[in-house]
């Protein structure tokens, strides 16, 4: 009897332990350290040493949500990173070594993101992590990469107000997407704005910026509305739109809500002739879900469209379709995810090592001919110079560019160069 119960005890504790040690085939690396009571410092030193010692491969982490609500967006971004890694490997890799991707699922859940980030840095000794989408998941990873002195390459436009020495921000800062869009709308469409967004940090911060900017320009915000993530009933909002008759709806809705909003707007008989909707989270991928017919004539602000006319983009689009299927489309975050791998690879070549501090130093001023045009890493804030483009949705679900900034715009995550933004800084 007794023996039997001990068996269960041993079995269950063994199971728990093996679960905890999952993915750690060589669990021995950490064993001695913990019992010897060595501190953090030696741990990370050993890690970086191992990367250099490693014979002919460089491990990198891919950390995206492959399950949960964000999976639909993030899997495409992961695909783009994989494409870039494959291309670089075919060209001989980095420092003559092959890049080995280690894929982890962030599961649309912040603690999982932070846990997987520390797993990638502590157990797999990755040279860099490419990943995250939402600001919440980036902020969950931020303390981890800072603590272990790792590198995170972030591919999505966001609300700014951040600049970690361990993160490279490859998406647009507000001054590379929102601010020029508001300016363009004010000059070309009208001065009364209806602000509509999903209830999370990006829309709320974006709308603060827009409010301040319009105060300065002399425009007006007729109404500001937020709906919970995943909200699908926009009839009340549409009646507000009817009442206030804005010239512009600045749309920061995210995900499924866009499908509901645009379709209900069209059902209510409001077309792009009546009011212009400019979205900052609707790219080619989303257009497929919403339906091009209801979006036709509305606008978006990004740094890249599938139709962007550069030779690099022709190659990128055809390679992407060849790798993942003719029906797939590219888009801004997908493109950013693609070129950021190249920026990292160049910085590593420049530094001659994958060691974080050396790569960070070498990264400043690195340029690359990305599909959206030339990009350059700004060493001061680790964001990227990018061209701003405003596009109009066409009947075929693609964008036609109606305006661009002409040259890459310097990133300004804290909006320091704008006097009207003082209260937000």
């Amino acid at each position, binding site marked *: *009897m*007794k023996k*039997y*119960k001990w068996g*269960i*005890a041993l079995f*269950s*504790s063994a*199971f*728990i*332990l*093996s*679960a*905890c040690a*999952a*993915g*750690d085939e060589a*669990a021995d690396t*950490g*064993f001695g350290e*913990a*019992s010897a*009571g*060595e*501190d*953090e410092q030696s*741990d990370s030193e050993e890690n970086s040493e191992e990367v250099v010692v490693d014979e002919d491969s460089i491990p990198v982490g891919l950390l995206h949500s*492959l*399950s949960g609500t964000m999976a639909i967006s993030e899997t495409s971004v992961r695909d783009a990173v994989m494409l870039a890694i494959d291309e670089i490997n075919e060209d001989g890799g980095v420092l003559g070594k092959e890049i080995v991707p280690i894929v*982890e*699922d962030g*599961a649309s*859940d*912040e*603690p*999982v993101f*932070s*846990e*997987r980030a*520390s797993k990638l840095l*502590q157990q797999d000794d990755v040279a860099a992590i490419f990943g995250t989408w*939402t*600001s*919440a998941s980036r*902020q*969950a990873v*931020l*303390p*981890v990469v800072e*603590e272990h002195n790792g590198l995170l390459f972030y591919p999505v436009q966001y609300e700014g*107000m951040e600049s970690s020495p361990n993160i490279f921000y490859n998406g647009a800062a507000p001054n590379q997407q929102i601010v020029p869009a508001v300016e363009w709308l004010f000059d070309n469409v009208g001065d009364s704005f209806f602000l509509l967004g999903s*209830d*999370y*940090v990006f829309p*709320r*911060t974006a709308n*603060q910026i827009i409010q301040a900017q319009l105060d300065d320009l002399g425009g007006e915000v007729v109404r500001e509305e937020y709906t*919970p993530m995943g909200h699908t009933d926009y009839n009340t909002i549409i009646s507000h739109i009817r009442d206030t008759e804005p010239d512009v709806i600045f749309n920061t809705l995210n995900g499924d809500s866009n499908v509901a909003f645009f379709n209900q707007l069209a059902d209510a008989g409001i077309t792009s002739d009546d009011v212009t909707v400019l979205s900052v989270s609707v790219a080619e991928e989303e257009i497929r879900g919403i339906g091009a017919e209801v979006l036709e004539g509305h606008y978006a602000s990004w740094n890249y469209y599938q139709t962007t006319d550069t030779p690099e983009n022709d190659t990128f689009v055809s390679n992407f379709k060849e790798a993942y299927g003719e029906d797939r489309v590219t888009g801004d975050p997908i493109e950013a995810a693609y070129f950021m791998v190249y920026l990292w690879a160049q910085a590593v070549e420049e530094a001659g090592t994958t060691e974080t501090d050396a790569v960070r130093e070498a990264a400043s001023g690195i340029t690359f001919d990305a599909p959206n045009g030339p990009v350059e890493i700004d060493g001061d804030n680790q964001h990227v110079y990018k061209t701003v483009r405003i596009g109009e949705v066409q009947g075929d679900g693609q964008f036609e560019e109606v305006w661009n900034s002409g040259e890459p715009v310097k990133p300004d995550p804290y909006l320091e160069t704008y006097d009207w933004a003082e209260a*937000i*800084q």
Partner: protein
Amino acid sequence: MSYLYSKKTLVILGFVILLIMPFVLAPFNLNLLGRFLAYAILALGIGVLWGYAGILSLGHGIFFGFGAYAMAMYLTLQSGGMPDFMGWNGITELPWFWAIFSNPIVAIVLAIAVPMLFAGILGFFTFRNRITGVYFTILTQALVIVVTTLIISQQQYTGGTNGITGFDTIFGYSLNSVTTQQMIYWTTVIFLGLVFLICYKLVNSRFGKVLIAIRDGENRTRFLGYNTSIYQVIVYSFSAGVAGLAGMLFVLQVGIITPSMMGIVPSIEMVLWVAIGGRGTLIGPVIGALLTNGASTWFSQTYPDAWLFFIGLVFVLVVVFMPKGIMGIISTIQARRRAKKYGKDRKEEAKLYNSSSI
């Protein structure tokens, strides 16, 4: 009684294994185990509430979240002053309800007391009006929506969907050093032991017997002269306090708290741990929390694309084939063996066995 004795040995053995883990596991794995143990504390509270008193709360995320936010606020204030999201949301002066959390003792006391008080008041009005069963469960779900929406909309005070993160010291020590993390781990294990002990005393006391009576026949118990609502209020409040404690320990090891970690889905998951481990036991919730989270971690690292299907399948299989959870299976096997040995009626034995609550 030899069974009870040996189960006690089992618990003590498990506790000792947990205590020596820092010498065995790598820091990363220790940190993972620590998180799961914080979840186990939470599961114990839910286990007592649901397994013994029959009250199903699908809203424990908010109590867990309050504890976590309280600790996160204290950590933010003592490691870097005002949180940076306040700056760019136009708040220049620290609001009073943040300022009080700069004192660690106040923060820790509030992290447990506020959930208890809140649950106490809520429970008082619901249970006194005999709102129980599924109506109470719906109410707790609604509460989760209200609280998370409130946190998201008050971005300037709460950090919105991004939550609170980026703290690096506690009591002047670096939060991320191996030694500090070991200390936090041991604290978690000790609190798990304490909470387990309290729960054990609670469910095996006269109070616990009344709880079981309420679970199995609320009206009968009331007609026997017991004021059932008082018992329900007390156990609900106790369970909320335990959740607050678990939240505090959790945030120390994870370093971030956001509204999505206390929302509807996590609140349901917490109950699932208890269901998988075994309702109506105390070991069950602990095992359930550890195994479920351990398995999720392992599956999702091994099969990042397909792990949710596995986990879903495991949940379905457990509910269909093991309605009493892991502990239920163990009890059945033991009862069967015992029956063989002593030639007694197996069902009688099983009943006898189940009457000792641990």
